[in-house]
């Protein structure tokens, strides 16, 4: 269950004539926490959506875990061991926290609907197992207090954690986190960082992390890819990225008075 490597080569994507990604290469090592940074609209989420097969690239290819693919199939992601969270939280609001997390085991279900209705041995075993490990992962992420609540009654930060729990429950090999800490308080961020670290250390899962907070990025990531206007402008370790002149020009250096990235970077 160790982390998987993924490589994207020459990925190009456009929306109605607007190029969102221009021949992007992305090389992610197994077991790394790999951050993707760049200003809004740079194409970070699009890249993740391509890995998930939600967007179809016009050109380029993907190598995942030794398989060469021209595009991913969304329905097979979970089986491949790829899970994700979404920039705009995607939870099932009609379900409790525990049920949402249990959904993360969908692809492992072997029992049939009929088996579930009559309560076959397999269906009962699967249900009990899913319930049990959902409770365990919720405890790990400090969500035990709210585990039976309707998921949409939770705070924003807690919902983001539920999404993480759902992504972690099946023991993924590649975890895609699209701005998992956006909108969180400083305290929540600290805990989220600890959770991601712990998950990574626990299973060796490869993590792709999209994040705006440079402090978080520099602290968490092994390697960083910088996107700007759909182009990869740099890739390297945090210390390389911090001193990369292109990055400073295009992204870090320009006045980002709104989010205070400079201050964080300088610190």
């Amino acid at each position, binding site marked *: 269950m160790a982390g998987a490597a993924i490589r994207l080569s020459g990925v190009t994507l456009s929306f109605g004539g607007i190029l969102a990604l221009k021949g992007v290469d992305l090389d992610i090592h197994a077991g790394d926490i790999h951050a993707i940074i760049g200003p809004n609209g740079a194409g970070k989420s699009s890249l993740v959506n391509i890995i*998930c097969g*939600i967007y179809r690239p016009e050109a380029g290819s993907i190598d995942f875990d030794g398989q060469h693919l021209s595009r991913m199939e*969304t*329905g*097979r*992601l*979970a*089986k491949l061991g790829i*899970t*994700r969270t*979404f920039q705009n939280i*995607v*939870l*099932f*609001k*009609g*379900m*409790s926290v*525990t*049920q949402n997390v*249990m*959904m*993360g085991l*969908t*692809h492992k*279900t072997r*029992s049939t*609907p009929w088996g*579930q*209705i*009559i*309560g076959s041995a397999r*269906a009962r075993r*699967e*249900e*009990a197992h*899913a*319930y049990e490990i959902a409770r365990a992962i919720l405890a790990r992420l400090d969500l035990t207090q709210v585990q*039976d*609540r*309707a*998921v*949409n*009654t939770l705070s924003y930060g807690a919902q983001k954690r539920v999404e993480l729990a*759902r992504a972690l429950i099946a023991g993924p090999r590649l975890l895609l986190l699209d701005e998992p800490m956006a909108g969180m308080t400083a305290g929540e961020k600290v805990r989220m960082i600890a959770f991601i670290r712990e998950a990574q250390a626990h299973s060796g899962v490869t993590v792709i992390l999209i994040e705006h907070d440079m402090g978080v990025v520099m602290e968490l990531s092994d390697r960083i890819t910088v996107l700007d206007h759909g182009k990869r402008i740099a890739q390297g370790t945090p210390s390389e990225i911090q001193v990369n002149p292109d990055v400073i020009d295009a992204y870090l250096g320009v006045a980002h008075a709104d989010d205070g990235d400079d201050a964080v970077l300088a610190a």
Partner: protein
Amino acid sequence: MSSAILERQANSQGLPGLKSFRGPFLVLLVFAVVIPQVHSDYLFDAILTPFLAISLAALGLNLLTGYAGQVSLGSAAFMAVGAFAGYNFLLRIPGLPLLAGLAFAGLTAAVIGIVFGLPSLRLRGFYLAVSTLATQFFVQWALTNISWFSNDDTSGVISPPPLHLGGFALDSPVRRYLLCLGVVAVLTFLAMRLVSGQTGRALIAVRDSELGARVLGVKVLRTKLFIFAVSSFYIGVAGALWSFAYLRTIEPDGFDLDRSFQILFVIIIGGLASIRGAFLGAAFIVVLPLLLSRAGAILLGPGFDSGLVDLVQKIFLGALIILFLRLEPAGLSALVGRLRIRRNAT
């Protein structure tokens, strides 16, 4: 307010133990043992039997629309398919037991449901609703114009065969009611089991976020077609019960768009994604008008204008529906849930 409702709904969906069947079982006991002691043909023929048939249809629609989020305006069409299929199976296969006839009625409706559920793979919400409207008109057209379905009977009104269960003739209002009760009880139990497990969660996932569901490995297309089939099965059986046990005639006319809307109102009033809601809503929509017209007859005396009462009734019902949607969007089911929680707390 509504978040509190959802919270309780979610709570009640924890790991289902047999305990959660205790309440429904007690209700069933009352309906199966106590109520049949009442000597009133009117109660069974005019109130309880149609109530059960509509409840079952609403339960079927609630699986599709409430749980899986696929809006349908074709419920009456599937009722009609069930009614005519049941009739034809029993007519053309001599000696076919009644329950097998009902099962075939449901299966036929399920097959038609899959066919007419295919647009759901591409269409959503309003557009899907419109496409199910096509089902409604097509089925009614086919049943009216293809005389084979009505055994080439030209009167347009055909009678179901006499109903037997084993050697037992279902020839009284109470017995027909008990047939309906038995069928509805079994199917309700199965539905409760279905929605409380992995498949039930997959349905809600498809409703709440198709993308999220797909990413997690839910086979969205298969899930949709599955629930179209199950829902149509339920509604088909409901249609057969409606025709065989309640109307005791089989005709396409009663299964029109009005009926489809009626079933939809039942689940909106009763509560979407709630098994109990289908029954509460049916009680409200089916039984209340009957009580109202009785009350009208008593209040106004024998010479009352039935057309006027009808109109007043519709306005009254319409106003109640609007009131409900404003005050209790989660339906009667949530209301009852709250009352129970209050009672348990005191």
